[in-house]
C-alpha cells in the first residue's frame, strides 16, 4: 500500500487528535460543585481597594480582579493586557481588557481604573497611599488605555509587582458621588470576577455564586459556588477538615500539629505551595533605646546564640530557611545571599558579651530583657519561647510579656515598652511596598510596622530612597542588595527565619495552589471531583 505524504500527515494528525483527546479526558474538569473554604477571621470590609490584607483577598479575589496577577510564569495581565513605561518613568501606560463586564452588566473601562486609582488607591488603601503618593492623574486616552502620570519617576517593576495586591479597580458607577468609606458595596462587592457575591451572614459564612457571563469564556468557572465558613477555633477547623466539611484552609489556619497529622493522611495535600508570594520573616526586634542593646556586639552575640536550624526543625517542622536580611529569597532579583551571617556559636556569643563588658553574675546572668512576642499565631509564640531558652544559654535572662494584638502593637510601636520583641514581617512582592519602611527613619511614633527600634542610619535612608526611584531594574536590585548587606551588618532587627505559610487542601479539589498567591486569586480554573 502506498501512502501519500498528505495522507500520512492526515493520519498523524488524527492520531495526535486522539492522543490529545484522551489526555484531555483524563484531566477533564467537572462542571459544578461547591468548594467550602475555612476562614479564621471575620472581614468587615470586603473591598480590596480599601483594605490590603490577605484575609480580604482570600474572599474578594473571587469577585474582584486586579489589573495584573502573579503566576509561576511571572506577572500576567488580568484586567490589563499590557503595560509599559515612558523613558523618564513618569508615565506608565496600561492597555485594558476589552469586553469585560461588571457583575451588574455595565462595561469595565478606563474610567473605572482612573476613578479607583485617584480616589481609593491614592487616598484610602493601606500601603497604596505610600506607593501612589506621587500619582498626579490617570488619563484615559481611550476607553481601554490608562496612563498613570507621576510627579517623580515610578519604577515599572515596582508598580507591576504591587498590582496583584494593590491594583483592584472598583466600578465607578457604584462609587462616584458617594461616601466611599460608607458605600454599601464595600460589604457586597461588585466585580468582574468568576464568582458573584451572594450573601454574607456575619459569624457564619459568605457565599459566592458562578458568574454566568465571565470574560474568560462560558466554560469558566468550573465551580457553581464557593462558600467561606468562619471558624475561629483552630482545633474545630481541623476537625471540620478531617470530617470532610471543609475543602481548604490556608495561611496556617489550623495548628502545626494538625497540619502535620492531616498532611500524612492521603485524603489531603499539605504544604507551602501556592503561598510563595506571602513569605514572612520570623524576627527578633531590638529596642536600641536600651543602651545594652545599642551595643552592636550584644546584638551580634544574640544572633550567634540562636540555633536557627534547631528552631526550623522543631517550630516550623522543616518548612522555611534561615533569613538573610530584610528581603526573602522569594524577592527575585532584589534578593542576595551574599551577606554577613552569624552562625550558631555559643562560645563566640559569650566572648562577645564579655568583650562588651557584660560579665555573668553569681547566678550566671549577664542582664535581663523584657521580651514581647507578637500573637500572630503558633510560630511567634514558640519562637519567643525558643528565644528565651537560647538566651539563657549565653547568660541573658529573658522575661516574656504575653499580649494580644492591640497590646503588642501598642507596647512595641507606641509606648516602646520592650527590650526585644518578635513577630513576623510579611514581604509584599517588592521591598518598596512594606519592607524598607521598617528600616527607614522618620516614621511618626505609634505607626505599626515602621522603624520603631530607633535605628537611624543616613546611609540606609539614602539607599532606600535611591532604590525607590531607580528605574533600571539591575541598578535597583544592586541598591537592594546593599540594603540587605547593611542591615545584616548593623543588625537593628534579626530576620532570623524565612518561612512560607502552609495550606491544607482536600484532594477532591483540582487545580488548587497552582499560582504563587493562590488563596488570593480568582479560582476560575478550580474544580471539584464528585
Amino acid at each position: 500500500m502506498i501512502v501519500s505524504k498528505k495522507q500520512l500527515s492526515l493520519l498523524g494528525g488524527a492520531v495526535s487528535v486522539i492522543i490529545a483527546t484522551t489526555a484531555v479526558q483524563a484531566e477533564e474538569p467537572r462542571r459544578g460543585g461547591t468548594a467550602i473554604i475555612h476562614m479564621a477571621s471575620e472581614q468587615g470590609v470586603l473591598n480590596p481597594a480599601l483594605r490590603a490584607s490577605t484575609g480580604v483577598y482570600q474572599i474578594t479575589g473571587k469577585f474582584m480582579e486586579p489589573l495584573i496577577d502573579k503566576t509561576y510564569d511571572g506577572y500576567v495581565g488580568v484586567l490589563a493586557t499590557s503595560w509599559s513605561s515612558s523613558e523618564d518613568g513618569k508615565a506608565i501606560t496600561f492597555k485594558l481588557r476589552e469586553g469585560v463586564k461588571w457583575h451588574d452588566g455595565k462595561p469595565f473601562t478606563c474610567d473605572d481604573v482612573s476613578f479607583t486609582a485617584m480616589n481609593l488607591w491614592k487616598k484610602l488603601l493601606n500601603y497604596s497611599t505610600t506607593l501612589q503618593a506621587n500619582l498626579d492623574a490617570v488619563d484615559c486616552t481611550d476607553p481601554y488605555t490608562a496612563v498613570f502620570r507621576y510627579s517623580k519617576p515610578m519604577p515599572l517593576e515596582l508598580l507591576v509587582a504591587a498590582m496583584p495586591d494593590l491594583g483592584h479597580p472598583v466600578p465607578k458607577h457604584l462609587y462616584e458621588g458617594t461616601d466611599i468609606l460608607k458605600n454599601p458595596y464595600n460589604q457586597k462587592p461588585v466585580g468582574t470576577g468568576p464568582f458573584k457575591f451572594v450573601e454574607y451572614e456575619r459569624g457564619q459564612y459568605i457565599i459566592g455564586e458562578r458568574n454566568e457571563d465571565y470574560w474568560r469564556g462560558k466554560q469558566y468557572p468550573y465551580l457553581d459556588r464557593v462558600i467561606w465558613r468562619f471558624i475561629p477555633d483552630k482545633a474545630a477547623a481541623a476537625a471540620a477538615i478531617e470530617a470532610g466539611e471543609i475543602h481548604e484552609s490556608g495561611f496556617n489556619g489550623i495548628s502545626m500539629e494538625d497540619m502535620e497529622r492531616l498532611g500524612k493522611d492521603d485524603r489531603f495535600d499539605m504544604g507551602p505551595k501556592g503561598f510563595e508570594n506571602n513569605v514572612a520573616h520570623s524576627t527578633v526586634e531590638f529596642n536600641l533605646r536600651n543602651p545594652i542593646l545599642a551595643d552592636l556586639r550584644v546584638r551580634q552575640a544574640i544572633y550567634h546564640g540562636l540555633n536557627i536550624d534547631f528552631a526550623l526543625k522543631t517550630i516550623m517542622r522543616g518548612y522555611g530557611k534561615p533569613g538573610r536580611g530584610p528581603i526573602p529569597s522569594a524577592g527575585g532579583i532584589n534578593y542576595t545571599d551574599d551577606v554577613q551571617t552569624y552562625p550558631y556559636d555559643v562560645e563566640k556569643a559569650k566572648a562577645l558579651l564579655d568583650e562588651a563588658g557584660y560579665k555573668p553574675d553569681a547566678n550566671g546572668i549577664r542582664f535581663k530583657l523584657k521580651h514581647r512576642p507578637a500573637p500572630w499565631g503558633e510560630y511567634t509564640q514558640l519562637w519567643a519561647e525558643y528565644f528565651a531558652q537560647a538566651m539563657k544559654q549565653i547568660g541573658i535572662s529573658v522575661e516574656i510579656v504575653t499580649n494580644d494584638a492591640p497590646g503588642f502593637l501598642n507596647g512595641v510601636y507606641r509606648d516602646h515598652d520592650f527590650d526585644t520583641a518578635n513577630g513576623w514581617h510579611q514581604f509584599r512582592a517588592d521591598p518598596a511596598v512594606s519592607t524598607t519602611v521598617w528600616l527607614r527613619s522618620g516614621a511618626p511614633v505609634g505607626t505599626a510596622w515602621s522603624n520603631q527600634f530607633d535605628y537611624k542610619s543616613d546611609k540606609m535612608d539614602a539607599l532606600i530612597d535611591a532604590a525607590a526611584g531607580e528605574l533600571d531594574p539591575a541598578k535597583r536590585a544592586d541598591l537592594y542588595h546593599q540594603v540587605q548587606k547593611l542591615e545584616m551588618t548593623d543588625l537593628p532587627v534579626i530576620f532570623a527565619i524565612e518561612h512560607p505559610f502552609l495550606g491544607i487542601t482536600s484532594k477532591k479539589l483540582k487545580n488548587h495552589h497552582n499560582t504563587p498567591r493562590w488563596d488570593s486569586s480568582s479560582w476560575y480554573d478550580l474544580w471539584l471531583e464528585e
Partner: protein
Amino acid sequence: MSIHIPPLLTYALRRILQAIPIMLLIMVGSFLLIKMAPGDTVDALVGDMGGADPAFVARLRAEYGLDESVFVQLWRYLMKLAQLDFGWSYVYEQPVLTVLMARLGNTMLLMVASLTVAFVFGITLGAFAARRAYSLTDNVISTLGLVFYAMPSFFLSLLMILVFSVKLGWLPVGGIRTIGAFKTGWADVIDVARHLVMPTAALSLIYLAFYMRLMRTSVLEVMDLDFVRTARAKGAGDFRLMVHHVMRNALLPVVTLLGLQFSTVLGGSVVIETIFSLPGLGQLAYTSVIKRDLNMLMGIVALSSVIVVIVNVLTDLVYAWLDPRIELK
C-alpha cells in the same frame, strides 16, 4: 376609679426600675475597663491585616472617633445609648443592634436548651439518687456527677467533636445550620437541632451534675421533715409523696441557683460557641474582645445585663409560686 395593678406586676416593675442605676454603673465600668486594655480596634484591625502605613491608621482613628479623650467618648456613647442607639461596629461594618439581634436567638436557643436539659435530668437523677441513698445506683449517679462536674467543657467539646463528627460522622462539627442547604420548615428545625446536640450537651453537663448533687442533698433533707412523715402516715403513695410533697419543697434551692447561674451559663457559652462556631453572643463577645470592638462589647454587656435582670425577676416569681409562704412586696 383607680387602676388595679396585680401585686406581682408591681413587684416586677419595681425590680426592673431598681436595676437601671446598677446597669448604668455596669456600663460605665465596662467602658472604662475596656479602655484600660492596651490598644484599640484600629490596632486589632491593622494587626489582622499584617500592617498598614501611618496615614491609613490615622484616618481610621479619626473615622472611628478614637482620637478623642476617653471621657468624651464615654459621654458620647452614653448620650447615644439614652436614645437606644447602640452605635456602629467597625469590625462587622453593621449597626451593633443588627448584629446583636442576629445572635441573640442562637444564644437563647442554646441556653434554654442547655438549662432545660440540665434542670430536668439534674432534678430527676438527683431525686432518684436520694430515694435510694447510699445504694449502688446512688453511687454510680453521684460518681458520674462528679466526673461531669470536674470535666472542663472545652475538653468535653473537642472530645465529642472527635468521636461524633470526625470518627462516626453522625453530627456536624459546628455552625447552626448546614451552609448553603437553605432548608425550610421541619427540615430546617431538624438541621438546627442536629447542630445543637453537641454544644447543648457540652454546656449542660456541668450544670446537670450540679443540680443533681444539689437536688439529692435537698431531697434527703426534706424527706426527714415532719410534714413528709405526716403525709406518709396519712397514706400518700410513694409517687405522690415524692412529687407533691418532697420535690416541690426540695426544688426551692435549685430554682434559686438556676436564676443565679443564668449569667454563669451565659459566660460558659463564650467557650462553647467559640469551639462550635455557633454564631451567638458568646462567640461574638470573644471576637469583640480580641478585636477591641468597643461598641459591640458594650452592646453585649447591656443586653446580657438586661437578660440577667429579667431572669432574676422571673426566678423570684417562680419562687413565690413554688412556696406560697414567700410574699413578694
